[in-house]
């Protein structure tokens, strides 16, 4: 933040006091003692909103041994940071975190509160919104501002991102939003920005949900191939099927194939991706040595991302794939396995 920006923020503070708004607040997600990337993304977005609103950006950092992370929040755009560093907050639990934030926000009356759309954000944002009669927009992928009414608009993915609906809560204050991790982009970290965080004096509530221990013998139900999020499929040109299986294991995906793979005896009939077999809609589909006939390509039309590896540059699969590698799968797949670690 430049001196000019600072000057502008200070000048705007007067109107801020008249309007009674309480700034843009970001509640930090802490993973393994470090601030999560989604928090920095939210701070970057909060900075932009606050500059347009003429408000300050505040970060809230709750956890155990997290005090030294506060500077990172300043670097990402916070003007003030509130910290509660307590061993009892080492692991996220709804009741103690909720108590700290509801007391804090009851006093500060924020105008906008951003959370990451993570376990913590999804547990706390709705509860705080309900307690404070605030509006909540979940999983916002982009944020924009309606300056006239000081309303933050969030674009929410519908049917998993096929399109977005733009939502706003013009009447309710505070406006709560949870932001989708990875959607807003990482902010510029200004290494010359720093500040003195304020430690909050709080009495912590006891958790109302007890963890009894690992769920012995629990197995989540098997996902049918049609709904699998990651699929690695083999075709006639795959060469070594064991490599395809290793790639599927490395990506945590399911093994499948086209009719050629079925003819080669690599897969069973219920693993054939084809409009006459299984139609799929995975997030990631890797086609190894699949030429891609009409029936196969129609069956993967709904896939969100397709990586195709095939030696023939004219293979029809390349017209459908997002990323194409012309090459022999026997050479490319081992290199890919190595690159994936």
């Amino acid at each position, binding site marked *: 933040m430049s001196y000019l920006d600072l000057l502008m923020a200070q000048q705007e503070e007067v109107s801020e006091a008249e309007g009674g708004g309480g700034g843009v607040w970001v509640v930090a997600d802490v993973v393994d003692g470090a601030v999560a990337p989604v928090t920095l993304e939210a701070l970057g977005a909060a900075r932009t909103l606050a500059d347009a609103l003429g408000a300050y950006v505040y970060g809230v950092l709750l956890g155990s041994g997290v005090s030294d992370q506060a500077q990172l929040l300043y670097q990402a755009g916070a003007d003030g940071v509130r910290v509660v560093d307590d061993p009892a907050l080492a692991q996220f639990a709804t*009741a103690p975190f909720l108590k700290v934030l509801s007391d804090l926000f009851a006093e500060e009356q924020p105008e906008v509160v951003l959370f990451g759309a993570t376990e913590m954000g*999804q*547990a706390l*944002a*709705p*509860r*705080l*919104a*309900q307690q404070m*009669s605030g*509006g*909540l*927009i*979940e999983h916002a992928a982009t944020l924009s501002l309606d300056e006239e009414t000081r309303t933050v*608009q969030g*674009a*929410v993915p519908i*049917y*998993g991102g096929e*399109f*977005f*609906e*733009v*939502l*706003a*809560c*013009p*009447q*309710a204050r505070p406006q709560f939003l949870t932001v989708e991790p*990875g*959607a807003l982009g990482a902010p510029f970290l200004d290494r010359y920005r720093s500040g003195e965080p304020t430690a909050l004096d709080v009495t912590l509530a006891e958790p*109302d*949900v007890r*963890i*009894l*221990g*690992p*769920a012995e013998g*629990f197995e989540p*139900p098997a996902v049918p191939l049609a709904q699998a999020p*990651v699929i690695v499929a083999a075709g006639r040109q795959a060469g070594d099927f064991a490599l395809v299986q290793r790639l599927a294991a490395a*990506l*945590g995906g399911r093994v499948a194939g086209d009719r050629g793979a079925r003819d080669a005896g690599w897969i069973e009939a219920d693993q054939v991706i084809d409009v006459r077999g299984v139609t799929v809609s995975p997030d*990631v589909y*890797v086609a190894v040595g699949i030429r891609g006939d009409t029936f196969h390509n129609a069956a993967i039309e709904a896939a*969100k*991302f397709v*990586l195709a590896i095939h030696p023939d540059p004219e293979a029809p699969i390349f*017209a*459908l794939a*997002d*990323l194409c*590698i012309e090459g022999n799968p026997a*050479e*490319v797949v081992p*290199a*890919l396995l*190595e*690159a*994936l670690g």
Partner: protein
Amino acid sequence: MRIIVILGRVLDPAGITINQRAGRIFVNREEYVIQPADRCALEVALRIKDATAAEVVVLPRGPLPDDDILRQALAIGADRAVYFTRERFKADEAVMVRLLEAAIDRLGGADLVLTGATTLDSGQGQLGPRMAAALDWPQILDAWQAEVVDGAVQAVRQDGTGYVTVEAALPAVVTVVPGAVKPRYPDGVRLVNIYKNVGEIAAALERWEVTDLVGVDMLVPLVERRGQDFPPPRERGVRLSGAPDEVAVAAAQALQKRMNG
């Protein structure tokens, strides 16, 4: 023991096409189904009912133009269902929480509220925790399974790569992830009877006037829709060239980005 299951309906995605270039949604077949996560919540409730002889009451998560999904829920095995009647009433989660809270009060209270952790279309999961806040009950979100043991609810949740069992004292709110359990099918005889309005089951579907539960001034949604936005069309056919090692690194980065985002 009384279990409340809150369920909603969703336009079956198999019947719609989204044309991103035209920026329009085409509804080819207008067919509504119970939200998949809510249907799993109903199944969890029915399993608790099988084990403890609880009463399962179904309430809607939003305004419904017809009572179809409530009839389906009754055919699947719920004991009672309440349809909120009011012409063209609009509601978001904040309004529904007030309405549901009043409805639970009129039912004479509840011990457990179950609902889906997320909706299939808009991905919103705020109804469960908002209910927990309004009722001031503990919440367990994203459960894979739940059962009632000695006046407490025990649920299985994902914790990192493993699963843990957690426990909260009743009354409590539990939300269930979609696909957590295999829901049972409706019973044929019950399905016919509920649509023909014959037998005991017909009386299980009650109609309550919204304004008897909450004041008209409470029926003001906070969330406003301000249009739609379509993502840019996908850029297909991007070719990677170079030695296998180099293209593999670029491809691995692209894959990892997709899988983590």
